[in-house]
């Protein structure tokens, strides 16, 4: 802690607190974003607007419609306007799904002939499409089983009695997030994203600003060393980043019931290592930009792939194999692993040494590279 380092930190804090937009931007905005993202980014699909065309109008056809609507995925918004062109309802966007029960369904079933129920689903959003198709086949399977049971009972002369069928039933048990709540998955991801945005952009723009305004020139003729200047400039933002993580986790557990099952110390270690990487990235961006505008654009360009190729939204393993190596050098990926591990799985250092080590290595590499470039640009 040299006097020059302390001077830079003090000056930086003074500038941050003096700028009325800074504190809301650095602390309040991330928390609001977490809440908004937590509610908005939801992978559960539970309201697919559906039109129904019951061409059979029998007790059995009504039972099928009811069973399709029973689990809440399909939301009946009324009968189709024209059963002959029911697909138009999906095409023109009035409904996301259309259910067509053909005339003669009950008769076919009674005659033990194959019968079909058609479900048309708008697949332009694959998540909705997949959920709706799954829900439809599940409901129809269930209805099919009932028909089968009745038929077996009839054959055995056991009218009205329950018949057990020798069917193979899967018995899934979900660990860590048994109710499959999206926020439990998303909140750690959002925390990692926010920390990346705050620390990378603030670092990149802070140094670019000094260069653009000419203040760097005045500072560099003093005995301050580049390392002291850089550390002094980023330290307040690292503190803000840690505060943001604390705030998002508090809000996450309060609003979304996100658990904190593992060690907070390990979480702090992972966060510090991660912030080293993000600050290094910001510093590197500042060395390749001449103005604040360039630094902002550079930060944005670096962050988009860092977030998309991190596993925050979709698993890295699902990406094409040629893209996956990019994720391996992505600190966001490792930090999300650490966060989810600690929060949801109570993972300890034995489980997390790989991502923690990767964060350490990445942080050291990018910081070294960035400081070297910064020195070179000064010279």
């Amino acid at each position: 802690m040299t006097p020059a380092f302390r001077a830079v930190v003090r000056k930086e804090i003074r500038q941050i607190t003096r700028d009325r937009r800074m504190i809301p931007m650095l602390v309040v905005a991330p928390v609001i974003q977490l809440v908004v993202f937590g509610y908005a980014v939801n992978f559960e699909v539970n309201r697919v607007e559906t039109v129904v065309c019951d061409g059979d109008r029998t007790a059995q056809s009504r039972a099928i419609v009811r069973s399709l609507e029973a689990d809440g995925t399909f939301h009946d918004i009324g009968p189709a306007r024209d059963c002959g062109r029911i697909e138009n309802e999906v095409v023109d966007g009035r409904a996301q799904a259309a259910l067509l029960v053909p005339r003669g369904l009950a008769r076919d079933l009674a005659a033990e002939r194959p019968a079909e129920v058609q479900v048309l689903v708008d697949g332009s959003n694959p998540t909705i499409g997949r959920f709706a198709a799954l829900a439809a086949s599940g409901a129809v399977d269930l209805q099919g089983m009932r028909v089968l049971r009745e038929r077996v009972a009839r054959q055995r002369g056991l009218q009205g009695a329950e018949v057990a069928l020798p069917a193979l039933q899967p018995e899934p048990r979900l660990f860590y997030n048994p109710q499959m709540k999206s926020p439990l998955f998303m909140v750690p991801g959002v925390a990692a994203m926010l920390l990346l945005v705050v620390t990378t952009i603030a670092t990149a723009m802070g140094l670019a600003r000094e260069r653009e305004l000419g203040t760097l020139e005045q500072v560099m003729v003093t005995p301050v060393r580049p390392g002291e200047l850089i550390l002094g400039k980023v330290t307040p933002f690292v503190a803000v980043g840690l505060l943001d993580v604390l705030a998002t986790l508090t809000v996450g557990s309060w609003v979304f019931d996100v658990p904190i099952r593992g060690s907070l110390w390990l979480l702090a270690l992972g966060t510090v290592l991660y912030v080293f990487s993000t600050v290094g990235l910001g510093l590197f961006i500042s060395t390749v930009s001449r103005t604040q505008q360039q630094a902002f654009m550079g930060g944005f360009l670096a962050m988009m792939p860092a977030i998309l190729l991190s596993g925050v939204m979709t698993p890295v393993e699902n990406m094409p194999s040629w893209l996956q190596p990019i994720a391996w050098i992505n600190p966001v990926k490792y930090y999300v692993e650490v966060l989810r591990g600690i929060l949801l799985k109570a993972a300890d250092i034995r489980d997390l040494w790989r991502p923690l080590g990767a964060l350490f290595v990445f942080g050291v590499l990018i910081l070294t590279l960035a400081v070297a470039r910064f020195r070179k640009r000064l010279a």
Partner: protein
Amino acid sequence: MGEVVGERGVVLRAEGLEHSFGVIRALDGLSFEVAGGELYGLIGADGAGKTTALRILAGLMKPGRGTARIAGKDPADARSGVRELLGYMPQRYSLYGDLSVGENLRFFAELFCLDRRVFAERSERLLAITRLARFVDRPAEKLSGGMYKKLALACALLHRPEVLLLDEPTNGVDPVSRLDLWELLYGFVAEGMSVVVSTPYMDEAERCHRVGLVHHGKLLLEGAPERLVGGFSGVVLRATGEMERVEGLLEGVGAGVIAVAPLGGSLRVVVAAEAAGGVERELRGAGAEVERLRPNFEDLFLARAGEVEGAEGRGGGGRSDLPLRR
């Protein structure tokens, strides 16, 4: 380097400085020396290489070739302790606009590791002589041009440097504040500080102990301003009359006319000594009133730059290609 740094010894030395930015040659073998307690002016038009030279001397960049030394030390080597000896005030605004006058002073004092008591003493004195004490809480960005420059000067002086480098300190400063600044500089020089001032304003040359005329990254002339102007062999004429005719005539005269610049409703014509009689006659013949003027520094500069350009085949007819020429 081993030179003796004493009362009159050399404290700043630039030797054969060369530097290029891409295809632009900013410095082309610039050399000069400044002694202790000397006020040295680097005079030259915009783009002459003054800022590059000062930035090299301040240790902000390394020259392509040549050496720069401050008290025998390499200014680019931060570990040599050279920065404690050096004060630098860039041409651009370089203080923190959102920090107050007092906060800017304190920040730079802390970077130089001044202790509290020393800082309090020095800042009080600097605020008093720059007359900024009343504005100590005002953000730097809210200061006028002149006050801002004085604050920048104060920030560069807090650590009592031996050498002060000022890049166009009077640029954008009103005449009264400009005088103030010069008065301040005289005070520091009297205390033994060496000051290098760059300026494009020729009238400021006369305020320096010694000046170096920089043109295309080279020193054209060097010496005490009064001696340089005294040794100027050219003749300066004021020609008044029908302007278009006079100008046309001067175009026709060609060699001998070094520079032509507007002067109120007349023209200021710098002429080589040997051509002076002829030019005067022709002007009178064309009905112009002609009067001889005392040469000043600008005339000297235009004449010398014109000669160089003529020799290098840059300008036409031996005339200078400088901003003041019509």
